[in-house]
């Protein structure tokens, strides 16, 4: 059952990701990205990371992508015009991409050899309680540093936005 669901959602995620690149219209691409996020959330859920799944849904699919769609709609961005492709990019693009993916896959295989297969439902530390405990004990410093970083980013965004108006 778990592996069937995994295959379904993995297929949806990959299909949406491919569609994201292939679509010409920004809104179609944005919606495909939401599809990717949603299926990723389902995959997290299958692995037992309930909190991560919910956070994925709320933060990425719910908040960030809404802003993307909002901006696309406000600017009324039209269909992307594909410019005349260069000759070498047309013929070398796909082979180079395959080579890159193969290289990355090889490196990952070398660095992190797969000792055993993934088993669904064995991970038990994905509940909000466990995540909260981990965040506020072992990972307190990274957590606080990240929040300061985000605060700085917010301040920077406000300063930049105000500067343009005045």
């Amino acid at each position, binding site marked *: 059952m778990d592996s069937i669901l995994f295959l379904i959602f993995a297929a949806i995620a990959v299909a949406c990701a491919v569609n994201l690149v292939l679509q010409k219209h920004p*809104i179609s691409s944005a*919606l495909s990205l*939401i599809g990717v996020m*949603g299926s990723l*959330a389902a995959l997290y859920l299958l692995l037992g990371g*309930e*909190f991560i*799944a*919910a*956070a994925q*849904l*709320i933060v990425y*699919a*719910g*908040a960030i992508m*809404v*802003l993307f*769609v*909002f901006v696309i*709609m*406000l600017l009324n961005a039209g269909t992307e015009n594909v410019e005349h492709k260069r000759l070498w990019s047309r013929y070398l693009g796909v082979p180079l991409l395959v080579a890159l993916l193969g290289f990355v896959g090889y490196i990952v295989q070398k660095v992190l050899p797969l000792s055993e297969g993934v088993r669904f439902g064995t991970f038990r530390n994905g*509940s*909000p309680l466990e995540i909260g405990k981990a965040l506020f004990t072992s990972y307190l410093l990274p957590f606080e540093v990240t929040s300061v970083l985000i605060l700085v980013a917010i301040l920077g965004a406000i300063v930049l936005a105000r500067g343009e108006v005045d």
Partner: protein
Amino acid sequence: MNFFILSLIKAAVVAFVLLTTLAYLQWIERKVIAHIQLRVGPRRVGPHGLLQPLADVVKLMTKEDMIPSHVNKVFYLLAPFLAVTFALISISVIPFGTEINIGSFKTAMQLTDLNIGVLFILGLSGIGVYGVALAGWASNNKYSLLGGLRSSAQMISYELPMALAIAAPLLMLNTLSFRQLVDAQGGYYLGFIPRWAIFQGPFPQIISFGLFVVAAFAETNRVPFDLPEAENELVAGFHTEYSSMKFAAFFMAEYANMVTVSCVATLLFLGGWQPLFPPQYGANFLPSLIFAAGGLVSLYHGINPARPFDRITLPITGIVFLGIAAVFLVPIVSTILLPLFWFAAKVGVILFLYIWVRGTLPRFRYDQLMSFAWTFMFPLAIVNLFVTGLLVALTSK
């Protein structure tokens, strides 16, 4: 029983009850608004217009389903589908009552008890924006686009105070599963004050409750926050170009969202199915008493009829009500029905509040709406969360 078959049966029951509720919620809304405005409301179709929802469904289904030539067809068709899907899915994590135990058969009155139920609802409400935003954009019409943009901006803005208002009772109740949330609100102070989150120590969550209800009005695009479909500025806002069943889908999504939000408010703040006062003061006999009183009043007016039809309709209603009152006294059935009664009563009160407000308040201006969210509700929600967290930290062991 087989888990799969049981889930199917439960899903069918919940879907049937939810859709009937949605249809009749609209009848109730029209009736209440009519009486607020000194009219009588629908009363042609069936007694007191009770078959009006059925007539509306037939009307919507038989209307011409036209697609304007200037729309972006894929997204135009996708938008109502998205809106109604995400609005209806949320009901799956809402518990309606305690566990049913009949002999060896045992099941919870809930489709699924996620241990992240609250987050699931928040996530779905965030995704629900796309239906409205896409509808506005795909219609390729300036009114629709403005409506869709307003709605997405409004929903993003009000989601923040709503999430913060939800977080405060969660700090006290210490769980994210709806069933455990309700269990944590059981019991009474001094023997009669219920330990619902709005009364519970160390910091009664009345401010959170107020913030949540106001934000929920904005999230569901209801008066006084129905800017996305302000008729005098935007024709009908994001659904200007929709007709027939596609319009009905948006309509249904709005009402389904209202029901979900009322359920969440009940579960988080009003103690779910925990009774208002303890059973030793007769809480278990209250439903019977209410229904019996209603039945007796009907019977009395049936015996002294004011209108010719009352001689037939009112005695029948009265006997049905007395029958319901009797059913609440049967021991095994009442253990199932009593929690359902309390839950439905609280949800009903909040839904009535929705309709009452619609009949009372005028619409906000758009800049008032935004500044209200960001300069009043957001800081208040943060202060409330901070005080709650501080008191919880000081009083916990």
